[in-house]
Structure formats: structure tokens, C-alpha cells
């Protein structure tokens, strides 16, 4: 039970907003020491852990193309394009992306999108472009909210889409673990099938929240205008 101190360190560290890198490193060292590892083994674990997890950092390979197209005004063009479509709101743009992301992930095409590839250069500017068309000006607070929801739509779409595809990591993990430990024989297809109800629920819940997002943004913009008016009125006196 003593090893749970490491978990506690993580929770406290994140809660008091220390630099997560330090929190994670210290928690790792403490846990390993409590678990009876010696310093040499701990260093070895940091090394092998880094080497075997390099795949999560591959996203930086897409930064050069994102960088050059942003330099030449991709975000501006995405905004202009969305601005022409009167019916689109930030919430509706994001629902569209959620649907595309979930459906493509469900047929195994998880690599079609991502935070670096699609969210930063395309999805966020489009959602913000829709808000710009609606309000004529996007205050920082609203932009921040749209950013959070742009990344959120990507995560929800891919998490609850990919499990409907048979050859995805989590499904294969379940079958390998269960088959070797309990001598069952589970078909990946059965597991994928039973992920469908949750996938539908995820789309409905998140889609509903994105529709409400538009109303929230309307409200926040009205509040913003009111305070702005008060300020100018104050100056006039």
C-alpha cells in the first residue's frame, strides 16, 4: 500500500500546479524507491521508458507543413471560407468535425486527423471564423472556449470511434489479455460490436453539448458587449 504515496504525489503536484514534468519525475522516482528498485534500475527505467514511447512524440513531424501553410494564411483562409456559410455556427462546425472524426476512426482511419494536423490549422480557425461572422468580433474569452472545444471534439470523436474498429490497440489489448489469462476465445469483432451503443451515446451527448455551446457563446458575447458599453459610457463621463 506504501507505493500509493507516488499516486498521492501526482495528485497533489497537479492540484497545486507545479510543473508537471517535475511532478511526474519525482513521483516516478519515489514510487520506484518504495517498490524496492535501486538507483541504477531507476535510471535504466527512465531510459527504456523514453525509448519505447517515442511514438507519442511523432506529431512534431507534421509541424513543418502546418508552419508553412499558417505563414501563408491558412487560418485566415479557413475563416473566410466559413464566413461565407451563413448557417454555420461554432457549435455546428464542431459537430460536423466530431461526426467526420468518429466515422473515419470507426473504419480505422484514426490518422486522418489530430491536434497538430487538423485541429490547429483547420478546425479551430473554422469554428472561430463562424463565431467571427456571428459576432463581428471574437473576444479572448470566447476564443479560449472555442479552442478547448475544438480539441475536445477531436478527442471524443477518436476515442469513441476507434473502438468500433476491430484492429485498434485497445480491442487487441482486451483480447490478448483475456485470452491468455482466462483461456477464453473472444473475437475482436464481438468487442467492436458492443462498442457501438457507447459510440452513439458519445455522439448524442457531445453533439447536444456543442449545440448548447452556441447559446453559451451568445450569452457570453452579450455580457462582453454590456461591460464594453459600460466602460465606454464611463469614459464619456
Amino acid at each position: 500500500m506504501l507505493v500509493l504515496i507516488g499516486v498521492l504525489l501526482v495528485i497533489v503536484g497537479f492540484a497545486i500546479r507545479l510543473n508537471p514534468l517535475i511532478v511526474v519525475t519525482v513521483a516516478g522516482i519515489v514510487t520506484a524507491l518504495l517498490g524496492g528498485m535501486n538507483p541504477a534500475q531507476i535510471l535504466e527505467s527512465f531510459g527504456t521508458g523514453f525509448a519505447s514511447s517515442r511514438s507519442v512524440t511523432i506529431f512534431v513531424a507534421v509541424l513543418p507543413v502546418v508552419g508553412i501553410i499558417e505563414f501563408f494564411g491558412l487560418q485566415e483562409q479557413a475563416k473566410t471560407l466559413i464566413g461565407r456559410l451563413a448557417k454555420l455556427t461554432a457549435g455546428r462546425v464542431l459537430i460536423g468535425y466530431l461526426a467526420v472524426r468518429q466515422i473515419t476512426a470507426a473504419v480505422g482511419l484514426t490518422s486522418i486527423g489530430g491536434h497538430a494536423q487538423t485541429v490547429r490549422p483547420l478546425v479551430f480557425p473554422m469554428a472561430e471564423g463562424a463565431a467571427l461572422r456571428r459576432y463581428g468580433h471574437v473576444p479572448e474569452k470566447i476564443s479560449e472556449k472555442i479552442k478547448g472545444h475544438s480539441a475536445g471534439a477531436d478527442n471524443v470523436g477518436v476515442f469513441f470511434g476507434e473502438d468500433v474498429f476491430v484492429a485498434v490497440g485497445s480491442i487487441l489489448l482486451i483480447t490478448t489479455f483475456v485470452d491468455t489469462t482466462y483461456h477464453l476465445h473472444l473475437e475482436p469483432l464481438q468487442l467492436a460490436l458492443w462498442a457501438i451503443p457507447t459510440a452513439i451515446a458519445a455522439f448524442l451527448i457531445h453533439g447536444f453539448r456543442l449545440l448548447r455551446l452556441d447559446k453559451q457563446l451568445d450569452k457570453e458575447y452579450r455580457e462582453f458587449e454590456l461591460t464594453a458599453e459600460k466602460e465606454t459610457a464611463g469614459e464619456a463621463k
Partner: protein
Amino acid sequence: MINVEAVYWLVGILFVAWASLIAADTNHPRRWGSSAFWGLLGLCFFYSTWVQAGTAPGWILGVAVLVLVVLASTGLLGHGKHRTSTGPEREAFAKRFGNKLFIPALTLPLVTVILVLAAPVLVIGGTPLLDPKNTTLVALAIGAVAAVVVALLILKPKNPATPLFESRRILESIGWAALLPQMLTTLGILFTKAGVGTAVGTLASGLLPKGSLIAGVLVYCIGMFLFTVLMGNGFAAFPIMTAAIGWPVLVETFHGDPAIVFAIGMLAGFCGTLCTPMAANFNLVPSALLEMDNKYGVIAAQVGTAIPLLAVNIALMYFLAFH
């Protein structure tokens, strides 16, 4: 065959190139600390190839990783001032190129997907062209290179190194968050080795009242959720919660359908992934990438979906898995 190691070397080369740009930038407020951080990170990507193959000692890499953590958390890593195109310049470029700007953006996913789909038939002399174990990663890297080439051909920047300059700007806005996902994976490994999982499993089965199906479903799903929040992914939580509750209680005692119990149990864990800073690549890297003020802003946007969805998963398991 294009091996996944080649992709890691491409990433390593990029890090070293960015580090050299920073080293050459005399106006950079943290010139040496920053270039040391990104350069060392790049070298670690090369050296890891031999660690992974078991031909080089891992502890040297471990020391380098700890140096990276120290550089990043003692304020030696910083942001440079970047000269990039101004707002009006971008508006003008956007007018000039119009929708052509989308071509490189779409080249990336298109090439990736085509390569992933065509990988099984891309065989030269009996060996597959793309590493069959890591097809997606290799395809993504090729897609990224192809997209840069297409962008250079269409946009014809004055300086052909523009993609490198401009990506350095994005990289520096991500900062130390770029290293966090890998550190969290290491933490997960250390947790598992030290027996954190078994301790949590014992705790969870101790909480469970005997003979109640609904209590079993609740502890399994909520346990998957909380354990995923702690570890950052459902993969670490699944074997432990399943050994503690999923298999002995839900399948053996209550005769639940294993496919339904395990599929939905894993999805309950995914709800946890939406709520945790430990899943840095999904929740913290994006807020850095989008240059948000609140680095927990992505999680804030997702919690409202994760909690009701967890409830839905509990209900689905309870009503579908036990006949």
C-alpha cells in the same frame, strides 16, 4: 523496408535542426538553455534506437532524460521572439492563394490514409515497403514529408527553409509539454513495476459488498474511470480492474457476457482519459498547441461529456451483459 526507427530519426533530425536555429538566434532570451533542451531531446531520439535494440545501456539515456527535465523545469527553457508573417500579410497571402492553401493541409491525411490502406500490397521482393508493425506511424511521417514538398511547390516561399522556421515557432509555443507524454509513459511503467496496480486492485475489491450485481458493475466501471484518471490511459487500468473485479465477480459469479463486460469496461476507462492531465498527449499538448491561457481548458470542455457518458456505460453494462 521503411522502418519505424527511420521515422524516429526524422523526428530527431528535426529537433536538432530547431535547436541549431535557436542557437543561431542571438535575440533569444534563453538561447543556450533552449537549444540544449531541444538538441539533447533530438540526440535521445537517435540513441534510443540502440537502447530499443538492446545494444546500448539504457541508464545513459535515463540520465539524459533527467537532464531534460531539469532544463525544462528550472526556467532555462524559454520562448524566442519570432519574425513571422503579420496579420495583414497573411490576409494578402490568403487572398492570393485562396483555397490552394488547403491542398498541402489535405495532402497530409490523404497520403497517410492511402499508404495505410495500400500497405498490405506494397511489397517489394517479398518484404513489405512499410514496417508492418507500425504502418500508421510510418505512413504519417511520409505524409508529412509529402505535404511539405507540395506546400513548397505551390506556395514557392522566398526561403525554402520557411517550413523549418515556422515550425520552430509552433514548437516553442508547445515548450516542455512536448516531453510530457513520454515521461508519463515512463511513470506508468514505474507504477506497474512497483505494484501500484495490485494495491489499487486490492483496494477496489475490498470496497465491494459481496453478492450485489449493481455494486460490482459500479465498482468495475468507476474503478476503470478513476484508475485511468490516475494512470493517464485505460490500458494500464484494464488488466488490474479486470483481475480484481471484472473477471471474478462480473463474469464468474454473475455470468456476465465477457465481450460486453470487457468492451464497455474499457470505454468507461476512456471517459477517464477525457478528464485527466495524465493523458498529456490528448489534453495538455493540445492546449499548448492552441496557445490557450488555461492549460486545463481542454479537460474543462470534456468533463461535461465524460461524466454522463460514464453513467451511460454503467447502465449499458448492467442492462446488456447479464441475462
